[in-house]
């Protein structure tokens, strides 16, 4: 008898609980521990990818800025030199023959 009562009460409580839960908002986040683990793991990998990309972009940006500070545009030696900036060394714009014609060695000019 008591067992039946307990079972009946359990049935009622679980029924009401499921009814209330059914009335509540629908849970969207994966409920099983395995699915949750997959989500967390993917998220960690995703952030590692993002941080890696940011590191690469920053390195590239620094390289470009270094070139710009030396008076070069980001597109290389042949893209012109900033107006008004001192030209530390002209090898990139002039070939060796022009130095030889002037009787100068590129090494001497560097000094």
């Amino acid at each position, binding site marked *: 008898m008591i067992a039946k009562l307990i079972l009946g009460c359990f049935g009622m409580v679980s029924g009401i609980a499921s009814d209330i839960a059914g009335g509540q908002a629908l849970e969207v986040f994966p409920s099983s521990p395995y699915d949750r683990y997959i989500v967390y793991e993917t998220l960690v990998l995703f952030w590692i990818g993002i941080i890696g990309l940011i590191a690469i972009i920053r390195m590239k940006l620094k390289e*470009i800025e270094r070139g710009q500070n030396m008076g070069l545009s980001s597109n290389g030696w042949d*893209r012109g030199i900033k107006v008004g900036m001192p030209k530390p060394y002209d090898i990139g714009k002039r070939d060796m023959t022009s130095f030889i014609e002037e009787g100068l060695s590129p090494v001497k000019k560097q000094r």
Partner: protein
Amino acid sequence: MIRQELRNWFEERYNVEDFRRFARSKRVPSHSYEIWYFTGGATLFLFIIQFITGAVLALYYIPHAEFAHKSIIEIVTKLHMGWFFRSLHHWGAQFAIALVLVHMFGTLMLKSYRKPRELLWLSGCILLGISIFFGLSGYFLLWDERAFAAVRVATGGAGNFPIVGGFIRNFLRGGIDVTGETLTRFYAFHVSILPLAVILVVVAHLFLVQYHGMSVPMSQESKRGQDTFFFPNILYKDLIIWLVLLGLVVTCAALAPPEIGRQADPLAPAPENIKPEWYFLSLFQTLKLFPGVILGLNGETIAIIIVTVAVLFLFLFPFFDRKSLRQERSPVFTWIGFIYIIYFIVMTVIGYFS
């Protein structure tokens, strides 16, 4: 080889060199507040995310009162990664509206709206309005009881405008009350009218930015350094910010997907403690400050009029700030802008916790 051929094919037909020259010549001012320049690009990036995720969701959503809610449950529970795309769309919208507000308040405080950039300010304000309506219409597409009640309140509030209020309310609802007609109408706004409007206004906004160049705050005119190349320096910095933003949106979308309430029932009473989306909270809280009747007049109508005047004042800010127009400092308008920001934040926080 194929790449070179394609390049040649293009260069024979189009003057690519002109575009390259333009890209190489574009410069951005460098100063202490240059970080604010990146908020606009970040907002644009979020709009692009919204377009992509929205297009994916539109493939499965059914804009009908009987099936809308069920179709969302199917997207979330049955489609592979459906819950994630929906969550990404939801969080992308929250971040986009927040960034539009940050971009706008930054522009306000740095007085970037001053002559000759008044039209830039106006187009930005229109974009904010469109973004908020995007949010409201998207929220309603859920067709759950909270969205239903929120739209009933919002369109009812619009109905309190003097003279044109009734027309606006009926136009938005597609009838005298919120029904399936409203859902069809909001769907049309959300997936066709508003995206078209956003594209047009964003193109105009970007064109104006190109035309006028970036604004330099008056306090930084004498302190500004050498201008920075847009390509590639600023673009790379933009990319870094976009990547961080993408990470944040994806993290929020993965860890906190928005829940789905019970299906809307037009005959059921509104649920208790109902609150609008966070960007409406300050307005909602302001309306709550007003009593039902003021000097024999409808309190809500008076509140709506006051809020409209405040919004219109903000919209026409560049034309009231006469000193900025003459490139002079205008501390009064700085304070007014500051009060707008503080009021918005405080009322939103009060609305959230009340």
